[in-house]
């Protein structure tokens, strides 16, 4: 009798099939196939894991665990910070759940994988339109790692060893950047901001930029939600010193904001989660990566790029992965990056999302977000003891909320009790701003949600809760 555990996912686990196959190979026992594994390393016990469950049991079990979570359907959540609540249209989910796309691998065999290849080419093309760049890759992991890759690319491109970033930067992006460039001995310096507006302080930038600077990085909208208006000036300063300008974006803003390519960006990165991908507790995300149409620069791009070509007989158009000599499977230790598996399906979701919205839909969405977030700032500012936003600049989607005489953590607990989740506590990140939280309002928040938040905050601030 052949030892076997017959399971629906393993067709040949049926004992008699196994036996027949073993006879073909000329073995009597599966362990003969492991005879070259040193005996002392063979596991002599059962793995300490649960016993197999039926599908129904798995479903009940996972559902019951997930039910312990409180989601934005159970309470009003006003969190953003690089992972935003947006509505994902049913069409997007429907397309990316098609198993032809979902269960395919990286399109190594182009002729039989045209669907995914064309979809990714369309995604790249849409990213070029949004960012004003000539070329985009087919995805990196997320915004934070894209920042790491962008600075490494700038370092290769300029052969310089310093990077300038704004002081107002997402701390996780900054931490990731440091992890990506520390091993190669690159120095990061922070550029100060204008106290009143939050905008990058150009004098400080001038003082810090030099012929050692590989890249100047800005975010637009910034981590604190204000819109950086001095892109052109920053680009000029960077370029005058031979440095590249890298701009980080939330692409959902690019229906109304000027594409970074129009103000001199050389590389544009960002977080594409906002375009048709759910939050999923922070992953998977979608690292956007685009650059100018410049052959030397393109050769330094990290990640996969899909190109349009023709069949060898010239009869048809087609798509395939291109410039693979940059990549690890060909170039090995000389590759531009080690990335292999990326976030293709999230990129595909973004392409479907943008095809649905079209140019005017993306503009309307941007406007809706502006209107609603401005309304929220207005309502919150009316409350005594609250200033929203701190900075006198235009804002998109996210904004700082400063509490004059309450701690953010206390306000947060008060809100939770009332079934709201306030913004992220950023008081420790920039202590000079005092007790401050970062709030996010998108198209999914209704006027009623915002009014209710304002009422709750009023109650908390006026009440005795501390």
């Amino acid at each position, binding site marked *: 009798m052949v030892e076997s555990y017959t399971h629906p996912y393993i067709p040949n686990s049926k004992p008699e099939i196994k036996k027949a196959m073993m006879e073909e190979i000329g073995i009597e026992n599966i362990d003969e196939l492991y005879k070259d594994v040193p005996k002392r390393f063979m596991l002599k016990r059962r793995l300490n894991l649960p016993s197999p469950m039926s599908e129904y049991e798995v479903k009940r079990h996972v559902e019951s665990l997930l039910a312990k979570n409180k989601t*934005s359907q159970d309470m009003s959540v006003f969190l953003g910070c690089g992972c935003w609540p947006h509505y994902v249209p049913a069409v997007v989910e429907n397309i990316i759940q098609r198993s032809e796309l979902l269960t395919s691998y990286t*399109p190594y065999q182009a002729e039989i994988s045209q669907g995914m290849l064309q979809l990714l080419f369309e995604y790249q093309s849409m990213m070029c339109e949004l960012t004003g760049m000539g070329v985009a890759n087919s995805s990196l992991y997320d915004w934070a790692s894209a920042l790491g890759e962008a600075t490494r690319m700038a370092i290769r491109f300029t052969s310089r060893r310093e990077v300038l970033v704004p002081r107002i930067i997402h701390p996780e992006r900054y931490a990731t950047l440091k992890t990506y460039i520390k091993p190669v001995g690159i120095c990061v310096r922070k550029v100060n901001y204008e106290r009143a507006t939050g905008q990058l302080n150009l004098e400080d930038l001038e003082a810090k930029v030099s012929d050692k600077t590989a890249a100047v990085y800005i975010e637009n909208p910034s981590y604190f939600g204000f819109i950086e208006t001095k892109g052109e000036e920053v680009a000029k300063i960077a370029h005058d010193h031979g440095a590249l300008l890298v701009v980080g974006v939330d692409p959902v803003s690019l229906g109304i904001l000027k594409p970074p390519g129009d103000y001199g960006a050389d590389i544009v990165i960002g977080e594409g989660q906002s375009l048709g991908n759910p939050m999923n507790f922070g992953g998977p995300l979608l690292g956007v990566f685009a650059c100018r149409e410049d052959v030397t620069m393109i050769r330094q791009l990290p990640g996969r790029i899909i190109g349009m070509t023709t069949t060898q007989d010239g009869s048809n158009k087609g798509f395939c992965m291109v410039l693979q000599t940059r990549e690890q499977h060909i170039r090995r230790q000389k590759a531009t990056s080690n990335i292999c598996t990326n976030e293709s399906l999230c990129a595909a979701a973004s392409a479907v999302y943008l095809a649905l919205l079209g140019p005017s839909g993306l503009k309307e969405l941007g406007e809706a977000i502006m209107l609603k977030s401005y309304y929220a700032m207005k309502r919150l500012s009316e409350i005594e003891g609250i200033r929203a936003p701190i900075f006198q600049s235009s804002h998109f989607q996210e904004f700082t909320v400063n509490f004059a005489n309450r701690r953010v953590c206390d306000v947060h607990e008060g809100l939770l009790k009332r079934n709201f989740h306030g913004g992220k506590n950023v008081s420790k990140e920039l202590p000079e701003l005092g007790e401050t939280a970062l709030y996010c309002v998108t198209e999914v928040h209704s006027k009623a949600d915002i009014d209710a938040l304002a009422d709750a905050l009023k109650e908390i601030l006026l009440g005795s809760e501390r």
Partner: protein
Amino acid sequence: MIAFKQARWNEPVVFELGHHGRKGYIVPKVEDSIKREVGDVQALLPEKICRQSLPKLPELSEVEVVRHFTRLSQMNYSVDLGLYPLGSCTMKYNPKINDVLTSLSSLTQLHPYQDEKTVQGVLEILYTLSRWLAEITGTYEVSLQPAAGAHGEFLGTLMMQAYHKFNGNLYSRTELIVPDSAHGTNPASATMAGFNVVIVPSNKTGCIDIDALKTAVSNRTAGLMLTNPNTLGIFEEEIEEIAKIIHDAGGLLYYDGANLNAILGKVRPGDMGFDIVHINIHKTFGTPHGGGGPGAGPIGVSEELEKFLPVPRIVFDGESYNLDYNRLHSVGKIRGFYGNVAVLLRAYAYILSLGAEGLKEAAEVSVLNANYLVRKINEIGAYELPYDAKKPRKHECIFSTKPLRKEKGIRAIDVSKRLLDYGIHAPTTYFPLIVEEALMIEPTESFEKEELDRFVDAMRKIAKEAKTNPELILKAPQNTAVTRLDEVKASHPRTMTLSWKMYKKKQAKNESG
């Protein structure tokens, strides 16, 4: 034999479709009272930063969007359609229940910065999964953060760096050793972390050359990155000796988990002496690869390396699950937030479905299937099996198409393209680099004997065609959405077209020129 014909829609690029003014989506309404109170959006934006003209996106109705992308999907082969024997990619079945679970709003609608009190369910799942992965790999602690295998490798090499730095040897431990049969990501990750890569050759049995390894190690050695079973599908029998050489030299042993499927429940990397292990969730734990990603690449480490893992760590105090950022020696962050959670949830459900018994069965059957293919393809007599035929392979095997080249000028890529005509995805082609004209075949446990026989049949037919009608192979594929593509033209600086914008520009130039 199935007669395969892939859909051939000749579908235009999305930018060529649609009509001005059509829309595929209605943006949620902004209440009139908000509009009244806030006023004109344009007035809120400084003109300097306003977008002057709309982005050139297509304008389609919802119906057209659905049709366009559904047609594209029909021109894409997938594991749900049949054998996908890409070596080292472990294209196994992706259970449907897991897609249902990841669509639950109790996951999709969770924000990563929510108060820990409100996300206990997902934290419990992640914590438990990390404990299971530690048990499976024989490691002490697991971080779920890396987004992919290569990302896990990058983190692993950073861990090595942190370890040597902690021991005061950062500037002397500059070399990472990698076998010549390694995945390309190994040397690339080592370089990203600032190490010099030292390549050691394989010996006649396809395993790492012990003498060469002894020569390669020195007080500069930071560690060795090794895949076991290796990319030839052969188990590194001398693993104990290898581990001793590296550890005696003061280095660390890194396990590339791309081939972990072969040994689930049979032998554990940690027990073999590996200090750092990455796991390709999208390979070993049956999560769909989505045409290239997302995946997940957790790493497991030994007890003495635990303190270097990235923040936050998910910790459990017996009552609740929390995120711990207070880790003095941590390498920091390698990405935003905590990992590819939707992918990790699928792995959690996968392990529950299979249990300890099922995982071991999966490993054994994947190895049985691979060895069955070794036997059956070898019987054809047209393909060469490099390295000792008597040695069992593990989850994958390599055949060389060299004999066909000698006779008819047929190369591995031609055999691969012809396989597509039979409705079977090609094996990994031209890898590992140490085998000429390599086809790297990994059937996984997910395919029934009949499907494996169909593959063997196709390989046999191709061998026969090589003799009787080699043009069929050289002109393949013919049954796919497009015939063989001009990949040289695609990458040539003069002709490369990487976006629709570039295409339009080239077109305009051609017309005027």
